[in-house]
Each structure stands twice: as C-alpha cells, then as structure tokens.
C-alpha cells in the first residue's frame, strides 16, 4: 500500500515520517519516531494511556490516524520536562509517590498538564472528572489527585 508522507511538529521539533494510511498516531509515535512514552492500554479510546495533545487539544493517539498529524503540533510526555529540569507535575508525581507500575503515568501527566493549561486552579472534583478517562489499575488514584492539586498550587504561586 502506498505510504503517506507526513510533516508535523512533535514536541517542538519539525518531524517527517512515512506511514500506512491506516496506521494510528500512537503506532507512528512508538514504532516510527521511537517515542515510546505513550502506551497502548486498550486501542479503543477507553484508557487514556496513549494520551497526547494535538494543537493543544487532549486526544487519545490510538484514535487518531498518523496522517491526521499533517501540519499539526503534537506534544507527548517526552516533551514535558525541560531538558533535565522536570515539570512541576513530574516532580509532584515523584514526591507524592503517585505512581506504581508507572505505565499509566505518561498519559495521566499529559492529561493533567492539559487541564492545568486551561484551568490553573481546578477543584478536586474537576481534577477527578478530567482524569476519569485515564485508567490506573495500581494506585487507587488518591496520590495522583493530590499530586495534581499540589502541582497546580505550586504553578500558580510561581506565575
């Protein structure tokens, strides 16, 4: 099958790739661009492990075709830290022990970051419902919510 040539921006870097028209953005990121931070937990848009943002909008990359990335701005977990300096959300997830097996963590961080960009001062309920599409089988979510709330506070104070 003819491959499609796609030009896009991933974490600020202009990127090109060839992909099968049926290939998902998740597969492109993982298999062609070696960005394995986004994970496949279900492949059907139900678990959030594959979360990335496209043009600033939170999407499940398993539900987006690679070809749809043409001309778009994609951000993944790999772009959250600034070099060696962790983002406050990342630091707070470590501090609060808000992860166990860690496989949901990339998706949850991408989702939480996108929430805080829209709403820097969310209530606990808003955090809980915003993250309701990101499943975590290990933690029971308590520490995740605390970490997000704490990061939001720190980011507000810093700005």
């Amino acid at each position, binding site marked *: 099958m003819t491959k499609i040539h796609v030009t896009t921006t991933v974490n600020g870097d202009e990127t090109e790739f060839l992909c099968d028209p049926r290939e998902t953005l998740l*597969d492109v990121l993982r298999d062609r661009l070696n960005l394995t931070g986004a994970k496949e937990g279900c492949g059907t848009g139900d678990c959030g492990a594959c979360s990335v943002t496209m043009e600033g909008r939170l999407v499940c990359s398993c539900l987006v075709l690679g070809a749809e990335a043409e001309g778009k701005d994609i951000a993944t977990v790999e772009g*959250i830290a600034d070099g060696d300096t962790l983002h406050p959300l990342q630091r707070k997830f470590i501090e609060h022990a808000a*992860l166990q097996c860690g496989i949901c963590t990339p998706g949850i961080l991408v989702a939480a970051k996108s929430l805080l960009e829209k709403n820097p001062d969310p209530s606990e309920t808003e955090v809980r419902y915003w993250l309701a599409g990101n499943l975590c089988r*290990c933690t*029971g979510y308590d520490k995740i919510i605390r970490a997000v709330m704490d990061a939001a506070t720190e980011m507000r104070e810093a700005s």
Partner: protein
Amino acid sequence: MSVSKPLPHDAARLHVTGSARYVDDIPSPAGTLHLAFGQSPIAKGRITAMNLDAVKAAPGVVAVMTADDLPFTNDVSPSIHDEPLLSDGTVNYVGQPVFLVIANSHLAARKAATLGQVDYVEETPILTVDEAMAADSRFEEGPRIYEKGDAETAIDAAPRQIDATFEIGGQEHFYLEGQAAMAVPNEGGDMLVHSSTQHPTEIQHKVAEALGVPMHGVRVETRRMGGGFGGKESQGNALAVSCAVAARLTGRACKMRYDRDDDMVITGKRHEFRITYRVGFDDDGRVQGVSFKHYTRCGWAQDLSLPVADRAMLHSDNAYLLPNARIESHRLKTNTQSATAYRGFGGPQGMVGIERVMDHIAHDLGLDAVEVRKRNYYAAKADASGQKDNSTPYGMQVEDFELHGMTERLMETSDYAARKAAIEKWNAENPIVKKGIAFAPVKFGISFTLTHLNQAGALVHVYQDGSVHLNHGGTEMGQGLFQKVAQVAASRFGIPLDLVKITATDTAKVPNTSATAASSGSDLNGMAVKAACDTVRDRMADFLAERHQAEVSDVAFSDGHVEVGEARYTFQEAAAMAYQGRISLSATGFYKTPKIEWDRIKGRGRPFFYFAYGASITEVAIDTLTGENRILRTDILHDAGASLNPALDIGQVEGGYVQGAGWLTTEELVWDNQGRLRTHAPSTYKIPACSDRPDVFNVALWDEQNREDTIYRSKAVGEPPFMLGISAWLALSNAVSACGNAYPAIDAPATAEEVWAGVRRVRDGI
C-alpha cells in the same frame, strides 16, 4: 538507615519522563517479527480440518505454525502439562489458541489470524457451576474437605441457624500493560527472552521444554511489568514460548503482545465462586459451628486452581475463632478461560464467605455488625497453657492477632458510632437516597502454601569504586519491591541509596526463583539480599580488622563510611582497599522461610509464617430508584509491621482497596450461553476510574512490628489490602437493608443492577 524511609519508587523519574521501558518499548533488533494467535470461536469441540492458505497468503505473513509444527513439548501449563500452547485437536474454550501467525508487523499478524478456515465438530460445552456439578466435571477426584470439630452437630444444637447461597464473580486483572514477550535468538541455539512476567524461572523452564534444550540454554530477563496482580504468574508462558519457537524457526527476533480484547478473551481471571453456608449461632451472635461449600469455576485447565481453592478454604475463618467448622471445596472444570492467580489467590473469596455470614447473623439478630464480629474474634494471643482454643480450622494456632487494638483504633479515628447514628437518621428521613456503612477486618496468611516455594536467592557485587550492583529473584510490577530491597542493601552497608544499582531480574544471575507472588516479594528477597550483603560486609570487616589489629566487632558501617577503631574510611575507600587486598566482593544470598509445614490433603499444619491484618470502614450512598451508588468515605488501618517504606506501603493499601472494591462492585464478567466472554474491553468491563475514588479516603498504617523475625520486622503488603474492599460491598448491602426488613442477600459484584434488584427484594419482596 534507608529502611523505613518513605522513598518514591526506584524508577519514578523514568516513569514521569516516559523513559521507563516495558517489554514492548525495548528497541527490537532489525527484522523483528510479530506474532498473533488464531483462536477458537467455539467453547468445546474437535478440529476436523484446517485450511490456513489464506492466512499464509495474507500480506506480511512469514510463517504459520500449528501444533504439528512445534518441535518439542506443546505445553504452557504451570502445573500438570494439560495446557497445549496450540490446540492438539480439541478446543476447550472460546479464544483458545489454535494456530500461530508470524508476520512482519503486529497488525499484519492480527489481521491474518482472523483468516483461518478451521472446521470443528461442536460438542456441548460445560459453562456453569450447575452444569459442571451435574457432569461431575472437576479437578481432583472429589471435593477437598478441611474440618475442625463437628460442624453439623454444633450447627443443629445452636439456638439459631441460617442457611443460604450466594455468588461471587470473577475479575479481570486489567494490568494496564497487556501480556508481552520478545525472544532474541543467540548463537548456538541459545535464546534470550524478555518477558512481562512475575515468574521468569517458569518462563525459562517452559521455553527450554519447548525448544528441547536444557534450562541453561535460555535466559529470561524482566525489568518491569506494567502491572501484574497475579495475571502474569503463568499467563505469560504462551507468549514467551510462541516467541521462542518462532524465533527458532525463523532465526529472527520475535515479539508478541496481546491486544486488549485478545488479552481478556485468552487469559485466565480470578476464580468465580458459588458459596453455600450453614451456620449455627447463639443469641449474642457467637458462632457455634459453620459449614461452607465452595463451588469454584476453574475453567478448562488446572493452572494454579488447586492452591487457589486451597487458599480460599484457608481464609474461610478470616478473623474469627470458629469452634466447629467444615469447608468443602469443589474445583470445577468448565469450558471457559483457565482461571488463574489474582491478588489474594482465593483468599478474598474465602473471606467474603465468612464476612457474608457475619453480616447475615448481625442482620438476623438486629445487632451491630461490628459488635458481632468482635465477639467472634480470635484471642489476641494463643493461650500458652493450651487450655483455650485459638486455632484455625486447619489447626494452626493464631499467635499474632492484632485486630482487637486495630478495630478499637479505627472505630475512634473514623468516628464510626456517630456516623452510624447519623446514617440511621438520614435513612429515616430520606426515601430515595439511602446510605450504608460497614466494617470489614482482614487476616491474611503469609507464605506460599506450596512450602518449597518459600525460598529466594540474591546476588550482590560491590565494585572497587564502592558502587553496589544488586540482583534478586523478585520481579518489579509497580509494588516497589526493587526500592524496598535496595533500601535493605543500603542499610546493610550503611551507604546512601544512590550507590545501589537495582538491576533487571535475570535467570542467569539468580536461578530457580519462585514467582513474585503470595505477597512474598520483600519478605523473601529482602532476606536473601540481606544475607548476600552481610557476607560481603563481613569479609570487608574481617579484612579491615586484621589490617588495623582490631576486633571485627569494632568495624562499623554507617553514614557512607566504615570505621575501624580510630580510622575512618569512606565506603568507596574501604571497597578499593578490600579489592587491592584481594577480598572477594561478590556474594550470593539465600533465604528460606522458617517454621512452616503443611499437608494440603489433610488440611493440617502451619501453612503460614505469620498473618497480616487490616481493617476498613466504608460509607456509601445508593439511589434506590436506579441502584446507582457511590463510595462516600473510606477509613483504613493496615498492618505492614515495621514498614520498610511507608510511602510504597500506603500506595499498596490504597490501590488494593480500590481494586478490591472494584471486584465487588462494578467489575462484572459476562459470558453468554455459548461461552463467549461479552465483556472483553474497558468499554464493557468497568474498573474503578479516578471519579470513583472515595470522596474522603483516610489511610493509616498500624504501628506494631511483626512478631515474627522478618526483614526488619516488616510485613508483606501486596495482597492483604485487596480484601479491605469487602467493606464497600457490605456497605452497599447495609444501605439496601435500610429499604425494608428482609436480608438483602446481595451477590458480588454488587453492580447497580444488583443493588436495584436488592432494593426490590427487600422493599417489595420481589
């Protein structure tokens, strides 16, 4: 000392940056092939013809294998060789692997796998408990029975009796990382296997059998899993063996991962149970005798079902001294996925049985359910004179019962009495939304019931620059085992944690390991690592003592330094000196759990080294018109002994509770009457989400140390908190009971439908 510090997970920085590698993230060698299974569409039958031409001709397909193409053993069972990797001509459940597709991409393999033309003669499947009992379809020759005293006579003689039956559903593990493996052929026919497994040694064993080579020809490496929960104790065998045989055939690296739907359809889950109980008790709610029958749906192959069903029997007492008890366990063979290990390993089902009995007794007598439980508790200690019975139904004395103090503390911190009164008032005033509150204690036995599994090994190197390389047989699945064990190593050498490198579990470094299961990870591996560290440390101490003409007892390791009398070296200097002094700085360590002995046929002995305890209180609200419900508040007090790492342990407690509550509330597995699993993706199978977390969630650790001599007097914490979730199920039952006089008799899971049906039973008698 780094033990007991609340340090984050060892790989936390890798996790938050997305750079922690799971099996599917490991860069694969050029030309790696991908695998998928062609699966049986029927629950029982014989294959009469197989035409795989369309599969072979599909784009990207390199080869297709059937049972006939397997070079050696066709088996992936962890127990009795009854589980062929690929169908041997019969099929026994919907989803059973029939042929193996090897293709150049994951998608190509999966698409081709649907193209097989296989003809079957269908037979009538055995799907339900009733069908299995009618056909006497079972594992073992008959039921196992454990007994203490004479239950039937005691029940008949008691002032009151209850007789009832209820169902407990299974549970999908839903580890967020599906099963995955990759095999890389090495020179001379050797095989390197990366596997997302809790049991690397078993993967090595099964791969070696399948390749017809000794175990030394296979090396298995596991850095981490994206969740395991028991689902990766035996269920990874099929993928690892497939990769190995395909890699042998093609000479190329082969990788296999199950898509979520395949994972749920192919792999085993928690065992479903039907439990019938007959209990005799007095007017104060004290049990005189109880008799349980467990009907356990094991699926088509034996897998780990016997020890799972045994452990259910061994937890049929939970926290209660039962003067007379009889537990009869039927292990039923059905044409469904082969049920397997799942956090608690049968313990939860057994415990739900007796908690249901306590709840029923309290309702029958109109007594407070906490009070009834306390009246039936074991005594705090075994009576030294042996006059007073404090024995389990399997004859083990309970010597470390913590629950009296824990219950009292939790009652206070949770403000139970006042809240219970407030709920009664609320229920009297509100006809539609009813509230409920319930308490559940946990007493969970720690040790593998298969006694020989209670052993572990470790390998520790100290390099000449003072850095430490640590390896042991345990696997990391998120529970923080690696960090806890590294804390032990750092403490033994008195060095900061960053000098200790934790390395992937590797069958070439530590052989003959047990699965990381039965909550045993840090108990066993912590002790083995301690032994290895102490060997190296003692050699260093001997050497330094001799050099300084001092006593060995005068050599001290702490704060990153080694002191010998007046002299003080950094640990790095001491390591360099020892190296130059030609001292071996590498050692293995070994540990086996003391005191345990167990006869599973007789049901007698001491299967457990000690017990871990917990207590929880959950408050819920239900909508009586729809059955919809929410957890409003949860209070937990959990016993982790002297915790090795309170941050990680509290994480286990919170996660365990939520997973346990999910099992008993929203997680419903539905098979249709042809044996097809209808809930095979998160779209239809509902695990708790962030929005389901209790509004108020108070978790604390009980601050007593383990009375047995475990690693720094800590207690195992992987499984026990799972059963704290039982209080959520009981709270829903309690809320339903506010609708009328009858006992709600709620099955598990208490889905919204089940709660709604319960309301109708209690309120309207239908």
